[in-house]
């Protein structure tokens, strides 16, 4: 947090602000909320930048030859310059051939790229599933207690966790606890032996012509019987359970839960509670595609697919900019800011086409990316998105990382570096309140803490015409005649009686801050305003 509670040195400083303690400057409204903002600031789960990686596709293995024997039929190794293509259904294995195409990335090769992640200034690394299984995506685990040997070992994972923590980066794993892979030895034993203790781990049922219930009716994904307490003990309730053991032993910082909506509120609530017991600072994020409201506190936060949808719909012209803002305001009001700050706002991931394939115009992509970094919640950045990688729906969006696009000429990378830097330096974007502003055509909102120096104003014009509007600024501390300046252009607006007359060019977004610098002869309107 930027609040400086200590008395500043009055002997060396010249500005009036520095001659006073900040405490004397804050008003009665700030005082009422200072503790709340301090708590928000201290909790890393509020508004971090999370970088999502598919291990197989992120960085080429340094030891591919020595581990080629680990890839067994029907698994196939591809070369890094190949792109994933939809394949054929392999009846015997119960999967598609593109699900068993591998590119060879692993924990070791990821570790070689930590400098890149550090330079991006990310706060957390989220790995798609890494547990022993048949496919490359590993959403069909055979055994959660083992890291798939094509990726490494649990020891490697522990070292990665340690190295990341040394760099100030958290580690989050993907837990798929609704179902396992059909070829899991546990499921195979359950099929073969009705008296096996594993039998009650799965949902064998006459309700299904197949004899067992599987996720979305997909043959390869038999559902776990969470109604059996032994399953819950195995997954999360015991100290040596899957959820808790990775938190305690490898010291991971949280779990993203696949198809969390299928686990239901009660089991999610229990899982989250046990995870917090194992590590009070851990985060549990649910893959929830619904309206976020009631999923907290069953999970700490959701993958904010709802927020994503509002942004894309506005940019596709399906909803107006003011309606997009209203939807955000409503979702925040209903879910509460504590929840929304912990949600992960993504524009694309392994289940969607990449943003560059969804929105064809560069202005649309730029506006979406800036909104991703300025709306409340964590930023969840899918590997390669920062480079402008392309890719349609599965499996195209899961292409190997284009390291050749990491160069100083890449405008999308430049934009992301700027956004990541802004995000790091602007507390209001990480944990500030959200205030929607009245508009007729623009999307306009503020993010604010108790300091006016943190306040951010976002104006977005997704229409194809210049928009001029008088905007009421919901910030009492903006002094009259102050100047608001855009962090992305030379645009400036003068504040007058709590309003600005905004002129926003077509298809343009602005991120504005107030200028609190001294006048040339030393006068400063903000000397006594925090």
């Amino acid at each position, binding site marked *: 947090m930027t609040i400086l509670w200590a008395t500043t040195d009055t002997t060396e400083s010249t500005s009036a602000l520095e001659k006073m303690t900040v405490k004397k400057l804050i008003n009665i409204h700030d005082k009422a909320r200072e503790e709340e903002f301090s708590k928000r600031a201290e909790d890393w789960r509020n508004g971090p930048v999370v970088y999502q990686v598919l291990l197989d596709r992120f960085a080429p293995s340094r030891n591919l030859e020595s581990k080629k024997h680990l890839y067994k039929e029907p698994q196939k190794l591809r070369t890094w310059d190949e792109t994933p293509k939809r394949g054929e259904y392999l009846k015997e294995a119960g999967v598609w051939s593109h699900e068993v195409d591998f590119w060879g990335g692993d924990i070791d090769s990821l570790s070689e790229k930590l400098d890149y992640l550090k330079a991006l200034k990310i706060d957390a690394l989220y790995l798609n599933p890494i547990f022993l299984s048949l496919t490359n995506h590993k959403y069909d685990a055979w055994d959660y207690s083992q890291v798939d040997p094509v990726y490494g070992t649990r020891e490697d994972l522990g070292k990665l966790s340690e190295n990341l923590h040394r760099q100030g980066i958290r580690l989050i794993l993907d837990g798929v606890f609704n179902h396992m892979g059909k070829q899991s030895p546990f499921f195979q034993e359950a099929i073969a032996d009705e008296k096996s203790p594993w039998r009650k781990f799965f949902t064998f*049922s006459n*309700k*299904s*012509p*197949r004899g067992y*219930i*599987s*996720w*979305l*009716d997909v043959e390869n994904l038999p*559902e776990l019987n*969470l109604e059996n307490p032994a399953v819950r003990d195995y997954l999360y309730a015991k100290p040596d359970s899957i959820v808790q053991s990775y938190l305690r032993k490898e010291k991971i910082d949280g779990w993203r839960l696949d198809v969390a*909506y*299928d*686990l*239901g*509120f*009660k*089991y999610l609530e229990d899982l989250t509670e046990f995870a917090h017991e194992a590590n009070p600072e851990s985060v549990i994020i649910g893959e929830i*595609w*619904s*309206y*976020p*409201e*009631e*999923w907290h506190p069953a999970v700490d936060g959701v993958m904010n*697919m*709802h927020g*994503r*949808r*509002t942004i894309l*719909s506005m940019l596709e012209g*399906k*909803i107006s900019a003011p*309606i997009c803002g*209203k*939807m955000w305001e*409503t979702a925040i009001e*209903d879910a509460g800011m504590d929840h929304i700050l912990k949600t992960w706002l993504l524009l694309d991931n392994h289940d969607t086409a990449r943003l560059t394939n969804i929105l064809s115009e560069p202005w649309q992509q730029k506006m979406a990316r800036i909104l991703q970094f300025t709306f409340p919640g964590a930023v969840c950045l899918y590997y390669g998105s920062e480079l402008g990688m392309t890719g349609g729906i599965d499996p195209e969006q899961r292409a190997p990382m284009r390291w050749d696009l990491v160069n100083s000429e890449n405008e999308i990378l430049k934009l992301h570096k700027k956004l990541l830097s802004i995000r790091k330096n602007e507390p209001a974007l990480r944990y500030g309140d959200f205030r929607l502003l009245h508009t007729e055509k623009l999307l306009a909102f503020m993010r604010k803490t108790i300091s006016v120096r943190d306040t951010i104003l976002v104006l977005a014009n997704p229409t194809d015409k210049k928009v001029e509007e008088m905007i009421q600024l919901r910030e009492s501390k903006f002094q009259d005649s102050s100047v608001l300046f855009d962090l992305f252009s030379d645009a400036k607006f003068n504040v007058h009686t709590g309003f600005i007359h905004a002129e926003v060019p077509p298809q343009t977004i602005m991120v504005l801050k107030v200028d609190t610098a001294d006048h040339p002869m030393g006068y400063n309107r903000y000397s006594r305003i925090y």
Partner: protein
Amino acid sequence: MTFLTILLLALFTSFTLSADAKHISRDFMSIHDTIKSPEIHERAKFTIYAGTIDVEVPPHSVMMLKVGTDDYPMGYNRYDRIY
């Protein structure tokens, strides 16, 4: 299990309205994607996506929507653990 959530859409104009993801997203937290919502009288269906639906409402008409909660053909059901 009884699902009581009902969405009512009414259009008073004389032309068809296509409304993409308007405020109707608000109360549909528990309804999942790809589930069809059968309209009780006319059997119109809309697919929920990320807590929103794109609706097309004929002129001078009212729709009363409920969420479909039937099993999939092989028994899977998104609502098994959702009340």
